[in-house]
């Protein structure tokens, strides 16, 4: 089961879940992902130790996609 989560004031919120074979669930997740991008969130896929990828489209095969806010110099 793949998950789309957003880091927010609750710690994190699960926005969508899908499997590779469930087209309807994936389509709903894509819609949610695009909505989050529209709100200024950035899509990131953790790829194991030391590596993460910025994604502009929801990858169907990713186990976990994390929506985060932009960072800035303090």
């Amino acid at each position: 089961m793949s998950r789309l989560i957003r880091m927010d004031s609750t710690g994190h919120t699960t926005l969508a879940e899908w499997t590779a074979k469930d087209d309807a669930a994936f389509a709903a997740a894509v819609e949610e992902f695009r909505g989050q991008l529209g709100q200024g969130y950035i899509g990131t896929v953790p790829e194991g130790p030391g590596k993460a990828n910025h994604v502009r489209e929801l990858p169907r095969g990713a186990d976990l996609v994390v929506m985060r806010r932009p960072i800035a110099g303090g």
Partner: protein
Amino acid sequence: MTADALPELAAVPWRARTDARWLTRYGRLWHAWTVLYTVPFLAAGAVMLALEPLTAPVALACLAHAWIIPELYAFRGASVVRPKGPRNEGSEPAAQGLLGDLLGHRERDLQRRSGLALEPGSLGVWLVGEAGALLVAPGGRRVHCFCVRVPEPELPPSDRISHLLLALRTDETGFATVANHAFAGSPWRVRRRLPAAMRPALDAARAAAGHSST
């Protein structure tokens, strides 16, 4: 901008990429600057004492300046990783769980004890805090301090660290470019200004960066 470039780089288009060469040069500049503002105070104090012992109070003030000013800079550097902002304790356990999933076993344990996430990179070994990061350069003889944060105060502390960690893992030099460089200097200068719980994390980062204590 490459495909894996940090999106936040678009907010600082005037900055050159912060790479290893830039960091080495900047570290040397900080070192030279420290010498430049310390030596004149030391020399003035010594000359006054040599010429007229009655100037001892003024000479002592000069020596105090030579000590205090570098300490203030080091304090500023260490402060980048001090806990800041609301604790949001109700949502912290969930955020801590997510951060724990992003870290290895040893790093997770260290983060829970110290509040800093250790992350090896190509520029050195990073210690990521809630609103800043320390970078121990290869060899462990110099620490760079960066102010960098996610400007969302309602996030629990561990989520703030996760934000920075994911950005760092996406594009390390981009992360260092977006962050504001606050200080560079010897690890011992930063260590003594860190909260006691964070000092073992700096020791671990120095060890991981290749520093030998022998």
